[in-house]
């Protein structure tokens, strides 16, 4: 127990030494981490707002199935049974001919029966699909049922919505990748500079019998620290900017996206960014120190061998 405590103390001492030795480099690269994570945070807010809007549109996609008007009671029963068995349906609503007529009359202030002397409107089934991307498939299934006169849905609108959603997911994934790579690279540079500055120590550590994990730990702590500090600064900056935006939008009585105003969602974003900062910092520093231990050390040894020859 005493030994492990001494080791932990040593790791933090070495980590503090790393910071002390190259403060300017640490600050510069640290700011890069802050900027990358801050942009990432704002990007998440923006994309979430757009996504929540597009997803709300998804729920509005409906498929209207109009039945023939001259069906027998048995035929109605059979069609109703077949329609209710269709897969991929989230909600199904039935509108009788009478209800349709009533709605039409109320909407257009016209008495259709008064003019035509009969009810021309067909019985209607309204489907809300589980998966919007499978709307066309559902429509085709409905169309195939005998007794269905016509199927209508916003074919073009659904297709545009799907393309938009897909495009947004691709843009989101690529931007995330880009920003995470920037964070990764910043932390990697900090740790590589530290390793370079401490290569003599590492050499001595190896010679006196330090294990590779013992050598790694101070750098892993350093990487996680920069990830965490960068993420904390980014979260604080986002919080302050969000406060200003909420105040300004409220005073102007302008529509405010739900994400901007939601404290819970901000908490989620903050936690996510902090976790991301630590994880990226940890992975990045591990990659830097492993690379040094495996590749650069071998290269140095190789150079020494050549010098010896």
């Amino acid at each position, binding site marked *: 127990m005493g*030994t492990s405590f*001494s080791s932990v103390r*040593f790791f933090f001492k070495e980590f503090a030494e790393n910071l002390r030795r190259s403060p300017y480099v640490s600050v510069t690269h640290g700011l890069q981490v802050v900027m990358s994570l801050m942009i990432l945070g704002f990007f998440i807010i923006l994309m979430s707002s757009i996504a929540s809007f597009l997803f709300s549109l998804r729920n509005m996609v409906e498929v209207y199935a109009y039945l023939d008007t001259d069906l027998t009671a048995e035929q109605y029963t059979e069609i109703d049974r077949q329609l209710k068995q269709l897969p991929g349906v989230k909600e199904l609503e039935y509108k009788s001919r009478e209800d349709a007529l009533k709605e039409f009359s109320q909407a257009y202030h016209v008495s259709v029966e008064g003019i035509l002397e009969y009810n021309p409107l067909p019985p209607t089934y309204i489907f809300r699909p589980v998966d919007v991307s499978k709307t066309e498939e559902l429509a085709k299934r409905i169309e195939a049922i005998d007794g269905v006169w016509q199927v209508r849905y916003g074919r073009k609108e659904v297709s545009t919505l799907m393309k938009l959603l897909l495009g947004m997911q691709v843009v989101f994934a690529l931007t995330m990748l880009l920003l995470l790579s920037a964070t990764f690279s910043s932390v990697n540079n900090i740790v590589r500079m530290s390793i370079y500055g401490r290569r003599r120590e590492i050499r*001595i550590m190896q*010679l*006196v*019998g330090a294990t590779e994990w013992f050598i790694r730990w101070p750098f892993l702590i350093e990487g996680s620290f920069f990830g965490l500090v960068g993420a904390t600064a980014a979260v604080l900056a986002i919080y302050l900017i969000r406060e200003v935006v909420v105040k300004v939008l409220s005073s102007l009585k302008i529509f405010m996206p739900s994400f901007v105003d939601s404290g819970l969602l901000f908490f989620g974003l903050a936690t996510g960014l902090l976790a991301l900062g630590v994880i990226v910092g940890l992975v990045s520093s591990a990659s830097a120190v492993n690379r040094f231990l495996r590749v650069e050390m071998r290269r140095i040894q190789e150079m020494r061998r050549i010098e*010896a020859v």
Partner: protein
Amino acid sequence: MIRFIDVNQAYSKNAPALRGIDLHVEKQEFVFLVGSTGGGKSSLLKCIYRELVPQSGRVLVFRKDVSKMPSREIPYLRRRIGVIFQDFLLLPQKTVFSNVAFALEVRGASPKIIRQAVPEVLEWVGLSRKHKSYPDELSGGEQQRVCIARSLVNKPDILLADEPTGNLDPETSVGLIELLQRVNVRGTTLIVATHDENVVNQFRTRTVRIEHGRIISDRREGGY
């Protein structure tokens, strides 16, 4: 303690470093490795602490073939072997005390053990009064003593010195080898690679000469 069996190592086809090396060093022996620069002395030492893996042959240290030792076991091998270099390899921003303590810290030693062991070893190498000094405030001989203290603080079974007197004047060199001799008397096996003829002739002990990667003489009575 250390046994080389037909060890071969080449950096390239035209540059063999070790050729058919057979060598046996007993426990508590003091051996000088002599020969011209690039003859293979350093390569031989490196094979012992597994800095170098020979292309063929076996290197037995503490009865284990270190050339086949898995990487995870190397730190534990090195804890039993001290290594001293010509360029001292000290940390300039650390005091003498911290430089020596560093070897214990990286093994996870407690502060209590460090406070006890470091002054002891510094006194032993004659540097107790300089424990607060930084390496650049010390002479070459003193810096090499710090390096020896750092190697000894872990109480190694084997001490390897690669040209330890390379940066020292003749008088200091003799003093340093006397110190190493005392280390040897305490029970540590010692191998010193050097081309310092004066030192080798003064301390009559087993001397192995390596030239072009081959052992060309192994004289028990010593002498360059």
